[in-house]
């Protein structure tokens, strides 16, 4: 990659053969294990640390906390961490879509809290119409109907269908049953997101302001919805299990087998296909070696999780925690959408250079609206998970630090606040870091809880510093 070489003066066709061979040389070569390692270090040096900082941070924290308390590494405690971090991971995954555009959604937490509260009221009171204060019910119905129109006008047809589904569930009072109620909550979340996207992309209000205003507003709506009365969600088995449930041992093995073999099949197929098409590809050795490592880790973790980890002899706790499974499935889904579909490609492009995207014929308004819709829908799901982990749709569901922790999770994982860079995986890793801190600190009873926020803040600061330094390197390099 030396554009200033004098060879460029040579006329086309008159080029000596060896020079020609150097063009696209990297595109046809095979990537062996050694080269993969070298490429990884090269990427690191050029200022793309990827998942490294968050993984290193996790390792440091784990070592630290295992010194602080011998209970930290106990199976029981480790098994609790997914439940404690899942809602952050889910909200953060939604935020990644918006952060990729260089926008932010501060309202995802409280909007999600309000949506979860609607679901809670629906199932608890048995009738959303009577359960909610009169005007609020009609406000939701009319608001959703308007958003359907808005979505059609903005050509976000998938969004319109989702909101319409939610509207039908609400109007037909299916919200008295748990599953339809939870689906309706996510649909209402999508409606909120489309509204956010409209205000940001069409009206032109900065997303920070739009979502800050709605962050405040949804907190009030939540309290209206609950009429000052928290709803206990632990009575609903499914809802309770979202955080506290475990896959049965058989299902755990099925789950892990499907995911690992799916991954293996995908990478093998990709390598074979690329080789057949004469493109750069990873050698079968590299693919199998990496697959073997992942499979071994997965098998070890599953075998470990399949043992009873409860210290109390009266109840058996074993299997992969449901929240971990939910987070993994969502991560795979989001990663697929972002990397394999035109929508995902266009989202990255819009975040990287909005003008380039517009000139390439991408409807950037549509991209923004759909990103915000997804973010708020994930926010609603996160609110549901949060209510599950608190065992209650409380009066402050999703407010306070929930959203800020989620943003922090995405950033610690490596997502840029300036757009164009980020992955769903970041949200998971960052959420693990965020969840481990209070978990570890609570085990050290001599340490005051105030430390929790100080340490979380310091970790975030370090993550941001790593991001800034690596970006400066990449700009220079």
């Amino acid at each position, binding site marked *: 990659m030396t554009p200033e070489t004098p060879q*460029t003066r040579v006329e086309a066709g008159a080029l000596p053969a060896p020079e020609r061979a150097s063009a696209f040389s990297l595109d046809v070569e095979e990537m062996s294990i050694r080269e993969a390692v070298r490429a990884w270090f090269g990427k690191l040096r050029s200022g793309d640390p990827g998942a490294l900082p968050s993984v290193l941070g996790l390792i440091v924290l784990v070592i630290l906390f295992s010194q602080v308390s011998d209970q930290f590494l106990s199976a029981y405690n480790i098994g609790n961490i997914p439940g404690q971090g899942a809602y952050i991971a889910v909200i953060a995954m939604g935020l990644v879509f918006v952060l990729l555009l260089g926008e932010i959604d501060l309202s995802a937490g409280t909007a999600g809290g309000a949506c979860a509260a609607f679901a809670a009221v629906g199932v608890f009171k048995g009738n959303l119409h009577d359960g909610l204060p009169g005007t609020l019910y009609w406000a939701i119905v009319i608001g959703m109907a308007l958003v359907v129109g808005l979505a059609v006008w903005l050509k976000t047809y998938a969004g319109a269908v989702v909101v319409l589904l939610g509207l039908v569930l609400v109007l037909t009072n299916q919200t008295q049953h748990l599953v339809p109620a939870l689906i309706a909550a996510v649909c209402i979340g999508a409606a909120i997101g489309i509204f956010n996207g409209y205000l940001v992309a069409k009206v032109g209000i900065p997303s920070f302001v739009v979502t800050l205003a709605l962050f405040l507003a949804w907190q009030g709506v939540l309290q209206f919805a609950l009429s000052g009365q928290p709803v206990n969600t632990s009575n609903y088995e499914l809802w309770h299990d979202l955080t506290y449930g475990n896959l049965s041992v058989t299902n755990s093995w099925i789950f892990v087998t499907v995911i690992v073999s799916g991954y293996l099949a995908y990478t093998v197929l990709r390598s074979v296909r690329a080789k057949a098409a004469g493109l750069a590809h990873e050698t079968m050795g590299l693919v199998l070696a990496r697959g073997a490592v992942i499979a071994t880790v997965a098998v070890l973790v599953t075998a470990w999780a399949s043992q009873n980890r409860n210290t109390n002899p009266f109840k058996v706790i074993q299997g992969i925690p449901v929240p971990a499974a939910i987070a993994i499935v969502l991560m795979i889904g989001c990663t697929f959408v972002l990397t394999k579909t035109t929508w995902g490609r266009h989202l990255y492009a819009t975040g990287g250079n909005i003008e380039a*995207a517009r000139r390439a014929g991408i409807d950037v308004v549509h991209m923004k609206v759909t990103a915000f819709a997804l973010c708020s829908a994930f926010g609603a799901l996160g609110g549901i998970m949060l209510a599950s982990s608190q065992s209650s749709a409380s009066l402050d569901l999703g407010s306070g630090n929930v959203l800020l922790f989620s943003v922090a999770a995405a950033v610690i994982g490596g997502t840029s606040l300036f757009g164009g860079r980020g992955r769903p995986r970041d949200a998971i890793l960052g959420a693990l870091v965020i969840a481990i801190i209070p978990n570890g600190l609570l085990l050290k009873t001599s340490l005051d809880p105030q430390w929790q926020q100080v340490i979380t803040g310091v970790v975030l600061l370090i993550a941001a510093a790593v991001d800034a330094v690596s970006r400066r390197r990449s700009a220079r390099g």
Partner: protein
Amino acid sequence: MSDPILQISKLNKSFGPVHVLHDVDFNVYPGEVTALVGDNGAGKSTLVKCIAGIHGIDSGEIRFEGRPVTLNDPRDATALGLEFVYQDLALADNLDITQNMFLGREIRRFGSLLSDGEMERRARETLASLSVRTVSSVRQLVASLSGGQRQTVAIARAVLWNSKIVFLDEPTAALGVAQTREVLDLVRRLADQGCGVVFISHNMNDVVEVADRVAALYLGRLAAEVPTKGTTTTQIVELITSGRSGEVGLTAAVASENI
């Protein structure tokens, strides 16, 4: 000489009271580089934007491959095979070369899934057909490319679609000596492949070197369209600055009319 592929005659364009283009005639020939020169405010950009369908025209006729066309929307121009590379290139830094070349026109399978392998192969073919040798991988991020390489990618993106005419807005403005060389070679090869190229530039050396003919705009009028061969840099500069050079150009009366 072959017939012009794009033929513009008596084109007029006003923005409110400001008459920006006066009866401009402009032709683009296949396999030739036509340089469009003129001082700032002479109407180069406006002319290009009229052709791109960004501005509507007030009067005049645009003929493409001999038949009259109307260009009211950028998509009309793209559909005809007109591609435009603007000065800021419009590349997304966080995407790689292939992704940028296919941005907005991705090859898909099963509805909306990306066909990355196919795109990679075609990107490489296109770059190879332009004899681009400075790129070692089409999966490099655009952020890591030099100015000349970026220009190359932007031009390659324009020719990827079997475009008939490529408009280049000051492609060498921000480049060093070697990179300018690289881009000029590319422009030449583009024309040699049979593509019509419109080359907008303020650099007379580049114009004289790469262009087959020069169209000079002077205060919204076409001062002259002359073959580069036999025309000196001084003459072109005169056409740009005063609208006439000896026998060529606007008549003295017209040239001084606007001053």
